[in-house]
């Protein structure tokens, strides 16, 4: 591991100014991903600016309804929050499906959003990787890509975003609050992430020094009827092979509103807008749900090793929405 300096900034503005002005400086949150990447040699920052002691650890009602979640809130505290459990169960379930009890105690909301892919080639510095070393190539297409993307990938990169939490936030239409060198701003979660295209090393729209300070959940009454289901290779403590976050609003047997997002199938937490559109006004039946999944998956470009994800996503989407439809009667 490269030597590095360590600072505890007095406030968010100071943290932003330092990272913006210093080559090789990065923010340190819970460290569950960054410290590991430093051990692996994937990351070699010269300065860690520790933002865990900044006052970003509260969960409070948002001015326009909904919830404002500080970026420093630990994953375990967010999952245990009574408002999240009652009003946004999909988020609590997604958080609890991720990592281990120890890691959830450490990991922050902001860090969870910005964690890096667990693609084997990205994490192995002896291998080429367009994300880690632009232009070096991608062995995944012909190598191990079982867990990689079927949607949104490019010839340069098919890495998947590993977060469970972010999939729930995508379904809920969360807003990300950012403090930058020019002041604060807010953007939709969908605007935070970039698809890889020819620049897989650029994963977000954030600039150097931009600090995520909070995540806002908009009011969404029917999110009380929401769920997260994660398919993985063992019963617990494993990254998703596929996951589905959904919220469903049914009236008189018809889909009045619906939110659907997919995890572990794309380089970003994947909001399935095409699938959502295909359900609106239709009967809340398994047939409708499967049709929506297939509409979303029409754009899928699987490889030999992950083609199984296409029917898997279709099945899990159908199962989760059918379960929600049953519980809304």
């Amino acid at each position: 591991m490269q030597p590095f300096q360590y600072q505890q900034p007095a406030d968010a503005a100071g943290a932003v100014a330092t990272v913006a002005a210093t080559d090789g400086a990065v923010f340190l949150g819970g460290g569950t991903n960054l410290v590991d990447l430093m051990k692996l040699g994937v990351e070699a920052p010269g300065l860690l600016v520790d933002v865990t002691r900044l006052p970003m650890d509260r969960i409070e009602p948002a001015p326009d309804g909904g919830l404002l979640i500080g970026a420093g809130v630990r994953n375990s505290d967010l999952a245990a929050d009574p408002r999240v459990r009652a009003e946004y169960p999909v988020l609590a379930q997604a958080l609890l499906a991720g990592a281990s009890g120890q890691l959830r105690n450490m990991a922050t909301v902001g860090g969870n959003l910005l964690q890096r892919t667990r693609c084997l080639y990205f994490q192995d510095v002896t291998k080429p990787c367009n994300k880690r070393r632009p232009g070096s190539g991608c062995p995944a297409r012909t190598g191990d890509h079982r867990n990689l993307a079927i949607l949104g990938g490019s010839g340069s990169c098919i890495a998947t975003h590993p977060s469970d939490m972010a999939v729930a936030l995508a379904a809920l239409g969360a807003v990300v609050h950012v403090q930058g060198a020019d002041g604060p701003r807010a953007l939709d979660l969908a605007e935070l992430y970039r698809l890889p295209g020819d620049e897989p090393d650029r994963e977000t729209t954030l600039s150097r020094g931009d600090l995520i300070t909070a995540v806002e959940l908009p009011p969404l009454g029917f999110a009380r009827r929401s769920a997260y289901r994660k398919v993985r290779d063992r019963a617990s403590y494993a990254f998703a092979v596929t996951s589905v976050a959904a919220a469903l609003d049914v009236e008189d047997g018809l889909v009045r509103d619906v939110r659907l997002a997919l995890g572990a199938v794309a380089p970003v937490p994947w909001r399935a807008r095409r699938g959502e559109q295909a359900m609106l006004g239709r009967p809340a039946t398994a047939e409708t749900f499967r049709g929506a999944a297939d509409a979303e998956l029409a754009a899928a470009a699987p490889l030999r090793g992950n083609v199984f994800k296409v029917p898997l996503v279709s099945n899990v989407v159908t199962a989760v929405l059918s379960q929600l439809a049953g519980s809304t009667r």
Partner: protein
Amino acid sequence: MGLVRTTEPATSVVRLRVNGETHVLTLDNRTTLLDALRETIGLTGSKKGCDHGQCGACTVLVDGRRANSCLLFAVAVQDAEIRTVEGLAEPDGTLHPLQQAFVDRDALQCGYCTPGQICSAAGVLAEAAAGWPSAVSAVPGTGPAILDAAEVRERMSGNLCRCGAYVNIVAAILDAAAATTEEETG
């Protein structure tokens, strides 16, 4: 990058509070809490298994919460109250209920993962008492979580045991959970 690296040292004077004692150490910033505990302070109960947060052998309690000490830089946990397996027993040597339950249930074979298992289980008991949900709990539920075998398996999934002593580990934790609940409810 040169500016930062040449004008300031990559070491820090770190004040660590471990099992009630204060240690003031000059550490390379790269030193993890696990390495500080084992190599500098000499508390070798916490174990280095994978060193990547995947096995749980390094689990300690930081301000009462279980955490992987291999993924924490010591410089970042200054002034936190750290508790390791060495700090669980009473000063007179009486074992912590979890330690006693692991002995009674023979909940280990080689024992390498045991300190992490026990510290993690201490965290589980506190989390359940605080009503924290798990992936097998009903999320909208309230009040303390009732631990059964499925709950213990899920909540302890961050601690691996290569000997496969899981059956007795689960039994030991359920014993300790029952004893703790009895104590609290009289």
